[in-house]
Structure formats: structure tokens, C-alpha cells
């Protein structure tokens, strides 16, 4: 049963991911990405991490993708022509990607799990959110603070970058008219 769900989710995720990078319309890409991210959220549930799944849906599907769609709208990008579609370095890039594919596959096939098991077995993960919260606010409190600071910086940075410089804007207007 679980295996069946896994295969469904995985198949949908891979197919939508391929579509993300292959369709010409950026808006369509964004929608396929949403589908892909939702499958990932479902996989998190299979991995007994409903908290992660919730975070994935809220932040990725909710916030990030809205941001993407917003950007696509603002930038007013339509369908692309074929010659604008593929980067000029496609031939070597495809070679490298295939090599990478083969290499990672080989590594995974050779890999063995040898690390010792921790204490969070299936029973302990029953109260998933509570456990994660405790870990986050005890053991990982410092990285947590750093990351929150990073978010603040990103927030301010994004505003500063997008804000129109009044003086320059006026000059541009003057030049335009």
C-alpha cells in the first residue's frame, strides 16, 4: 500500500519536474512546479514527517510559488520561441548531465548504510511536531536564530533592491517625456 503511494507520488513528481524544465511558458512551468512540490510534501508524510509536509505546503506552495507567479506577471513574459528556449551550451551540458546521472546512480548503487541508528524510531515520531520543536529550540537554537536573522536580511534586501530610486526615476521620466 505504502509502496503504491510512493510510486504514484514519485512518478508524478518526476513527470512534473521534467515538464517544469521543458515547457516554454513560464506560467505553466510554475504550475508544474507546484504539482511537483506537492508530491514532495506527500513524500514527507510517507517519511513520517507531517510537520515537514505542512511547512513544505505553506512555504513553498504558498509563499514561494506565489512569489514566482507574481514575478512572472510583473515581468510580463509570454511564450518563448524555440531559438530563445535552449541555452547555447546545450551540447556539452547534456553530456555532463548524463555523466552526472550515471555517476550518482553508480554511487547510490554502491552505497551502504553504516551509520548507527538514533533514538527517534517510529513510536517516538508519533508526536512529530512536538519532537521537532523541542529539538529546534534546544539543540539547534543558535542556527535557528541565525536563520531567522538571515530571513530578516533577505526581507530588507529584497525591499531595497526592488524599491525605485526616486531621484533616478524622476530623471528617467524626464528623459522619457
Amino acid at each position, binding site marked *: 500500500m505504502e509502496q503504491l503511494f510512493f510510486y504514484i507520488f514519485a512518478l508524478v513528481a518526476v513527470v512534473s519536474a521534467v515538464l517544469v524544465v521543458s515547457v516554454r511558458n513560464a506560467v505553466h512551468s510554475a504550475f508544474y512546479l507546484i504539482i511537483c512540490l506537492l508530491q514532495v510534501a506527500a513524500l514527507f508524510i510517507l517519511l513520517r514527517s507531517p510537520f515537514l509536509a505542512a511547512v513544505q505546503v505553506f512555504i513553498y506552495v504558498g509563499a514561494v510559488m506565489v512569489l514566482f507567479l507574481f514575478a512572472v506577471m510583473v515581468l510580463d513574459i509570454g511564450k518563448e520561441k524555440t531559438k530563445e528556449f535552449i*541555452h547555447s*551550451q546545450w551540447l*556539452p*551540458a547534456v553530456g*555532463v*548531465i548524463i*555523466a*552526472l546521472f550515471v*555517476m*550518482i546512480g*553508480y*554511487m547510490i548503487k*554502491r552505497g551502504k548504510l553504516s551509520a548507527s541508528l538514533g533514538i527517534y524510531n517510529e513510536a517516538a515520531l508519533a508526536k512529530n511536531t512536538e519532537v521537532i520543536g523541542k529539538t529546534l529550540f534546544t539543540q539547534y537554537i543558535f542556527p535557528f536564530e541565525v536563520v531567522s536573522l538571515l530571513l530578516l536580511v533577505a526581507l530588507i534586501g529584497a525591499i531595497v533592491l526592488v524599491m525605485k530610486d526616486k531621484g533616478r526615476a524622476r530623471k528617467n521620466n524626464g528623459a522619457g517625456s
Partner: protein
Amino acid sequence: MDIWALLVIPLIVSVFIALVTRKNEELSSYLSIGAVVIGFLIVLPYLLKLPGDPHMHPIEQAFTWISIKGLKIEMGTLIDPLSIIMLFVVTFVGSLIHIYSKGYMHGDPGYSRFFACLSLFIFSMLGIVLSNNLIMIFVFWELVGLASYLLIGYYFEKPSAADAAKKAFLVNRIGDFGFILGIFVIYYATGTFNFIEVEHHIAAGHVSSGTLTLAALLIFCGAVGKSAQFPLHVWLPDAMEGPTPVSALIHAATMVAAGVYMLARTSFLYAAAPDAMVIVAYIGGFTALMAALIALAQSDIKRIIAFSTLSSLGYMVLAIGVGGTGAGMFYLMTHAFFKALLFLGAGSVIHACHTNEIWEMGQLYPKMKTTAVTFFLGSLAMMGVFPFSGFWSKDEILSATFQSGNYFLFAMGILTAFITAVFISKLVVVTFFGDKKYHGHPHESPKVMTIPLIILSVFAVVAGFAGFPGLEPNFGTFVHTAGAALGEHGAHAEHHFNFMVASLSTIAVLGGILLGWSIYSRKGMKSDVMAERLPFTYKFLENRFYIDHIYDTYFVAWIYNGLAKILNYIEVNIIIIFIINGSAYTVRQIGKGLRLTTTGQLQNYAFVMVGGVLVLMIIFAAIL
């Protein structure tokens, strides 16, 4: 601690002047004078304690400078009677010359540079005197060479001065090459550089006599260069291109004496190598005689004194060579006083007349009485007239020579004394008393110049009594405490005043004065009579035995035309074209190629990054 201060203060002052106070000339000169006077004040207590404790135990302070497996080099100071006396001479004469320079160099555009160089020189000279091992003495030896290069070439815009500086530097390097080889021989034989330890090794008879002779001769090479002995003497007369105080400080009182000091410092080595001592003595005696003869035919006031310096240095080396280390050091001290006096007096005269040519002076006595009187006293000391200082010190050298049993060298010494008397009286007579030939209005120099002259003249007159035979302990006692352990035979000579020798030298000197006076005090003489009477000899002497000429024609020309051409070819074709231009070209071509990788295409960079990760993965997979 104070000993290290002695060494460090002049260095700091030199650097400070060069970097900070260069613009402020007054301050620079006061700093430099202050440094050397402080040095003198540090030395003074040691000197005053010396008569009470003539057999003082050497004070050695050292720290390890370089320590690697199988080689340990120290930086250290050694205070014993020998170094105290030398320190006294250097700092005392140095102080007076610094003060004199303040007046002499007044208004010169490179005033601060001059004082920075002087302080550097004092630093290096004190380093030589203080050092307790051969490597350290060599380091400071080279620093002295550098300082003297800077000072001789002080008027570097004048080609002759630049050439003279170059010549002094290069000729000294020849001697230094031998010196460092000698140091290596000693290290090879004894395994240490430290003077006291080397002395113990030699005293214990660990070193074969052949090795000792070789080491002694090689080290003597260094002294030949620095103290301007016969084959390498050519730089000293040319070095008179520097300012006169430099000539007084470096080429009379201190630097050239460094060679003699070094010989005295290593006298234990010479005492153990009699064969080497004979050669040293002959070179010294020959230099003394040759320089005196050449001085006869010179007409430049500084050159005459320069050749007399050569002659005196020959005397000192002769003294070392016959085992009279004490006599040599004693002569070194008195010579420092009267020769510095003569040079400074000459500087005063040049300052007044604006010429070096003695045939363009004459009748200066009424115009500049202080200079004339002090110069006159210095001349008497130089000639060795009883009871001036030169008499006592020269007498000790002559009696040491006499007692060593080498009567040929003794005759050379007496002859040198005679000739010295002739040309010094010529110098005095023509410059101060002969017919008036100067132009303009010469006048007495300022006080800052005459006061050092007066102080020096006092010492030139009385310093000889330090070696007065009746005195106990007298000068010889101090210097001989170090070498006495080895039973140096010269030590006996010091204490016995030889009446026969003294009267012989006095007769020679008085004869010389009479001869010089009678020839050169005639009225209406425009140039040297010797040139008219003995034209061939005069020419020969005037051209300094053609030694410089021979060097120029054979060695220098050979080096210029042969070696220099080969080296030039190598430099132009191999070094410049191949190595320098080649490496630059290669780097530029590589750069041109690599420049193309900066495409500005973001995804090219990402592509390369992924490729790099791929390569790392392949390496990882291959290793595991």
C-alpha cells in the same frame, strides 16, 4: 646592558635620521653627535677602571643568533682591555669628528644624510670592536664597508667620488673573500667561532701548524683590504674624495684601524703561526716604506696625509708581525689622535682656501693661527719627535722589531721614519710658511671646528705617556694580558725601553726634518724642486709606483673586456631575453588564453562547477 646600548643607540639614531628627521638638519646633527657622545660616556667608566685592574677578566655577553644542527652562531660582546681601548679611541675621536663635521659640513645639501651615514658607521665600527666571535666581526666588517662606501661616495654626483667609492668597496671585497675563507678554516679546525674558545683550542695544541698558518694568512687578507696594505692599498688614497671629516674618521682613526684591531684580536693565532707572522711583518714594512716614498711626490694636502696614513698602517701591521701587539695597538691609539688632528687641520685649511693643492697655499700661519699651531703639533707627533705621542709609540714598534732580530725590517722602519719626517716637514713648511700663493681671503674656521682640533692636539701631545716605560701598569700591560698566556715573545719588548733604538730613530727624524726644511723653505719656489732635480724618480713616485696603472691595464681591463663581455652576453641573451622576457611572455600568453574563460555567461560557470563536482565524484569513486 650598557654595552648593548652602546651598539644600539647609533643604529636607532641612524635609522631615525634617515626616516624621520631628515628634513630637520639641525636636529639630525644633534642626534648623531648625541649618540656618539653617549657612547663615549658609556665607555669612559670602563676606561677609568682599567688602570686599577689591568688584568681584568674579560666580560662576555652573548645570545644565540643562529642555531641549526651542527652550527651555532652567537651575537655577543666581549669587553677586555683591548676592546676598551679601541672603544675609547672610536667614541672619543668619533665624538670630536662629529662635532667638527657640524661646522665643516654646514650648508651642505645632504647634511642629514651625512650624519645618518656617520651614525651607521659608528654603529658598525663599534660592532667590530665589541664582537666576540668571527662571524659577528665579519658581519660588522661588511657593514663598515657599506658605511664607508656611502661616505666616500657622499658627493655621488661627482664621477670621481662615485668611482672612488666603488673602488674602495670592490678592493675591500677581495680582502674580505680571504677573510671569510680564513674564518671557515678556523671553524673547520676548531668547531667554534668564539675568540676565547678558539684561543683555548689553539693553546691546547689541537690545531696543526699548517692549518694555523693558512688560517692566519687568510684572515690577514681581510686586514690587508681594510687596513690598505700593499697589494690592496690602492683604494685608500682615492677614498679622499669623501668629505674631510670622513677621511679623518674612517680613513685615519677608525675603519682602517679595524684591520689592525682584528689582527690584535686574533693575535693568539699569529703567535702560534710564526711563518705567517714573517709575511705579515714584511708586508707591513714594505707598505710603510712604499707609502712614505709615494707621499714625497704628492702635492694634494689630503693625499699626502692619506699616504702617511698608509705608512702608519704599515707600521702597525709590522708591529703585529713582529709580535708587538701592544706596540701596534699603542701606535693605533696615538695615530688615531694625531692623524685625525692632521686631517681635521687639513680640512680647516681646505675650508679656508677652497683648494687641496699645497702649492696654492703658503703663508697661512698668520691667517689661521689655531689651525696652524695644532697642525704643527700633530705633525711633530706624526714624525715622532721626543716627547710627543708618536715618539713613544713608534719607538715601541721599532724596538719590538729590533728585538725580534729582523734587522732588515728594522732598517726599513728607520728609513720610513726618516722619509716621513721629510715629507711632513715639506707639508708644514709649504702650507703654512712658504711664499704666499693663495687667492682670496682665507680666514680661521669657526669655533665648532677649532675646539676639536685643540682637544685632539692635547691628546696628540700627551697620549704617548700612557706607554711611558717607567709607568706601571702602562699601555703594554693592558693589551698583553690577553696574549700573555701564550708567552708571546713581543711581550718582552714592550717593557724594555731600548736607548739605542730611540736615539737612532730620533736621529733619523731630526735628519729628515732638517732635510725637508732646508729644501722646501727656500724663497720663490713655485712647485716641487724634486720634480726638476730627479724628474724620473719623481714621476715614478707621483704615479704611485705605477701600481694603480698596472691594475688598471691588466686586471681591470681584463675584467672589463673579457669577463664583463661574457657576463653581459649571458645577461642580455639568457637572463633578459630568455628568463625575464620569456617568463613574462609565457605568463601573458597563458593570461590571454585564460581570459577567454571569463565569458560573463552565468550558466557557463554553473556548467564548469557541475563538471568539477563530477570530476571529484569520479576521483572519490576511484579511491573507494
